[in-house]
């Protein structure tokens, strides 16, 4: 019974049915299923399936967006119960597209997928000055910085952020993850990033790992 309901939450989420997900989460709470179970075995489970299918080109950007929207609809209902049970987000990530770069479709997908793992995200938008990122890291309990760059002219902006974090003495406070069309593992190594992934689903998985590392 419980398993069937969680399965249904996951399936409706995968099909982007936000209203259904919200109703089913309410129902699950009424049936006294623990908020953490609903989160992990319903919502996060559904988002993981979508992420994997996205990586394999079985579903595409619109499907991920509507699934993430359904996830949020479910989370909205679940949040009070989660905090009531003392369940906090796994951690907090700051995400943005670097200075001079306006591309944000990929950044937004990465953000949604990371949120889909139960990680809170501070989204600073596009064309973000390194100093703004430094300030955000300093002023918040953040474990991860995610930087997107789509242009060869802006990719070194990721290095500038890493350098600015070093200068501000904050480099050890966070892990830095980079991505975007021109970014490669070699480039990530060259600029001293902690992690690079090709796609949003892998980014979410790595975010979870990096945050756990920082919290350990």
């Amino acid at each position, binding site marked *: 019974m419980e398993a069937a309901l969680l399965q249904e939450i996951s399936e409706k989420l995968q099909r982007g049915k936000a209203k259904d997900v919200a109703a089913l989460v309410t129902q699950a709470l009424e049936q006294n299923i623990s908020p953490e179970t609903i989160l992990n075995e319903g919502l996060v489970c559904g988002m993981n399936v979508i992420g994997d299918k996205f990586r394999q080109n079985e579903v595409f950007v619109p499907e991920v967006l509507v699934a993430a929207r359904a996830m949020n609809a479910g989370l909205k209902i679940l949040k009070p119960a989660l905090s009531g049970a003392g369940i906090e987000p796994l951690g907090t990530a700051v995400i943005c597209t670097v200075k001079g770069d306006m591309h944000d479709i990929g950044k937004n997908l990465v953000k949604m997928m990371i949120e889909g793992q139960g990680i809170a995200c501070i989204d600073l938008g596009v064309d973000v000055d390194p100093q703004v990122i430094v300030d955000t890291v300093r002023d918040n309990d953040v474990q991860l910085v995610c930087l997107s760059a789509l242009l060869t002219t802006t990719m070194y902006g990721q290095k500038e952020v890493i350098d600015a974090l070093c200068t501000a003495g904050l480099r050890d406070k966070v892990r830095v993850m980079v991505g975007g*069309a021109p970014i490669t593992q070699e480039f990530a190594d060259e600029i001293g990033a902690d992690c690079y992934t090709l796609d949003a689903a892998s980014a979410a998985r790595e975010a979870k790992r990096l945050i756990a590392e920082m919290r350990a």
Partner: protein
Amino acid sequence: MSMTASERFARYLSGKEIDRMPIIEWAPWWHLTLGRWHAEGLPAECASVDDIQGYFGLDRCLQTGVSYFTPASPTVIPGSGIGCMEDEDDWERIRPTLFPDVRTLIPKEHFDWLRATHERGDTLHFFTVEGFFWYPRVLFGIENHLYSFYDYPELYKEMCEDYSDWLVELFDYVFSQFHFDFMSFAEDMSYNSGPMIGEACFDEFLAPFYRKVIPVIHKHGIPVFIDSDGDITMAVDWYAKVGADGMFPLERQAGVDVSTYLDKQPDMAFLGHFDKMCMKFGEAAMRAEFERILPSLQRGKVIASVDHQTPPDVSIVNYKIYVSLLQEYAARVTHKGGNITPCPVFAEQERSQA
């Protein structure tokens, strides 16, 4: 064998004998790249695409485009990703401000200039409109557009229906005035990992409208190219099935390998594919890149060209080396014709003449 730019292009796409490959850039230059080149000696008076192509010794390849907006339409800032509508009510309001009279869009002087430069024999002209992915994206804005396939499917189709009606009129009028060498639909519907939408979505939301307008363009004997960055390995098959003649720019950075496209879509032509990322490394790297694509060029209907805009990390010296290599390799592409399949539009022509 002497031929005009137009003849060479049409013969190339028809799989007939040619003297050399066209030597073209179709994209205007990135302003940051031009800023650098002006500082490195590109004369200040070389400002238009036409001037710059002439300066570097490229065949001229010039774009004409029109917009479906009118002065009464809401303002949409290009590239902002912010649209001007959300739902049916907005569409009701905006719809009457769109789609100007097709006869008013291109001034007589422009048609005169098109004809004069065409007669000179050294210029290709292409006509561009937004495709059925790009156009709704402009109106909805980037994010809402991606949701619209689920939130407003009927509205999406209605918008495309109206647009395609207008395009049919536009093409019939414009192409009766001037015979463009090719036309392009701006789409940009792919990225490094593939298309942003899936095949079912393409079939439902884009294909019917392409199937409606491509025959109209073909009736005028004009080949249709789809312009989509990113990895189009899946999308090339979808555009082939709606009758497109070719695609560009075949972005190498996104992992495209044109030789596999020639295997699976032998009817299609391809333009671009020269990896812009290698240009900053100088002659040896660029020569190696030409060597990589030469076998595909020699199979026919592939025109080497920078796979989108030359990035600002390329010096003017390296760009000049690129052009001289392009000329050298273009001269090595001299088919005798015979076993190359023509693009759909020319195949149709051959069938109707037979």
